[in-house]
């Protein structure tokens, strides 16, 4: 039995190794969530537009992203972005772009279900009031779709937060990397991985409890 020793986890170690990674993981989560929801909503609107030239590319994009492992997508973008822009790009910037574009595919499926959950009568009512397509979508359908799908969107964001650890593949400095480097430098990998797991668990678990509470509060009475 190995003796565990957490004594090296001083405030200096935490601020020196962990905080930097934690901030990047949070930044990555928030950027990919906001960007992903905006792009995802656009993709969902394209897929529901009924126009083949909009439906086809959106469907192809979403299905391609969803059929490849996230790790491979991270590697793909890390390989391709420099080829396209002609200069190397840092792992962190590459991760921000990748996660935004990748999550857009997942958020778009959620938004598509959300838009489809709004009854047809709402669209008809919008048009009957003389609203344009843009107004009906923006003022009638999307607000209800967001509300219906808010718990699912947030659950996807918790998964996104957990998935940020996969930037390990390109060596970006995220929360997990911070723990890993601290563990290597102090030769305490067992303790650092344990603390990392506990920290990830506390964050994800409390967020999912909050989502559950929210779900009960915002459920629309039908």
């Amino acid at each position, binding site marked *: *039995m*190995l003796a565990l020793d957490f004594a090296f986890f001083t405030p200096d170690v935490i601020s020196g190794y962990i905080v930097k990674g934690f901030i990047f993981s949070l930044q990555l989560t928030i950027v990919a969530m906001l960007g992903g929801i905006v792009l995802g909503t656009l993709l969902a609107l394209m897929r529901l537009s009924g126009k083949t030239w909009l439906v086809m590319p959106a469907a192809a994009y979403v299905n391609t992203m969803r*059929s*490849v*492992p*996230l*790790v*491979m997508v991270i*590697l*793909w973008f890390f*390989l*391709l972005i420099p*080829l396209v822009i002609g200069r190397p790009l840092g792992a962190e910037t590459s991760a921000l772009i990748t996660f935004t574009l990748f999550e857009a595919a997942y958020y778009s499926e959620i938004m598509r279900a959300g838009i489809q959950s709004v009854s047809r009568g709402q669209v008809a009512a919008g048009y009957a009031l003389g609203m344009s397509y843009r107004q009906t979508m923006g003022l009638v359908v999307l607000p209800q779709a967001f509300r219906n799908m808010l718990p699912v969107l947030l659950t996807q964001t918790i998964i996104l937060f*957990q*998935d940020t*650890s*996969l930037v*390990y*593949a390109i060596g970006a400095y995220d929360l*997990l990397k911070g723990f890993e480097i601290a563990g290597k430098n102090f030769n305490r*990998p*067992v303790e650092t*991985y*344990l603390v*990392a*797991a506990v920290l*990830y*668990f506390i964050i*994800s*678990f409390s967020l*999912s409890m909050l989502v559950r509470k929210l779900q009960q509060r915002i459920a629309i009475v039908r």
Partner: protein
Amino acid sequence: MSSWDWQVFCKETTSGDVAPSCFGSGGDITYLDWLLSAWGWTLSVSVLALLVALLLGSLMGILRTTPHRGLVLLGNAWTELFRNIPLLVQIFLWYHVVPALIPPLRDVPSFVLVVMGLGLFTSARISEQVRAGIQSLAGGQRMAGLAMGFTLPQTYRHVLLPMAYRIIIPPLTSESMNIIKNSSVAFAVSISELTLFALQAQEETSRGVEVYLAVSGLYFISAFAINRAALFIENRVRVPGMIGGGGH
């Protein structure tokens, strides 16, 4: 961007010479050999982890629907624990922490540890689906079973589970496809599967696009094969008269 060079797969990994048959001979292997063996590792990890996940996920899901408070609590705790830690962190726990804390596990190959890690991670998701499937049945089903004189295990075996599993085939299918994709994290503990092949072959050959395309294609084919197999099962076990379970 330079033009395609698919011949890279016929190159031998050590000498870099192009093998005439595209397969290595005399102890040397080509990148194609390596790719296929990596595919084998990906499939082995996925299938074994899926078995672990189905077994433990079903057990925990069933426990969560029993009338025993303690068992419900156990199932809930299991599910929350394995659902709220990132898969990569769980894999590191199995690889670095578990053998350090439990010395008899020190000699277990990392392949087994990854199967356990991926299996337990997925078992939490399957437990959710099994629970939801059982709870979606009308409450009268359970009561009818018990009223007929079945014991609780018999009620599950003959009344509740046969229907619940048919209902959850679609989410189970997507979870089985997810496990193929999720097996890619095994690269982090040096299992020689597709993602690790992608990383290493890209580095050695500098033909990243060709290598990544081949690997992504194999992931796609694997997930698609699972999708078709599940559809076949869904149609075979379909209960006549039910809305769900129709083919495409």
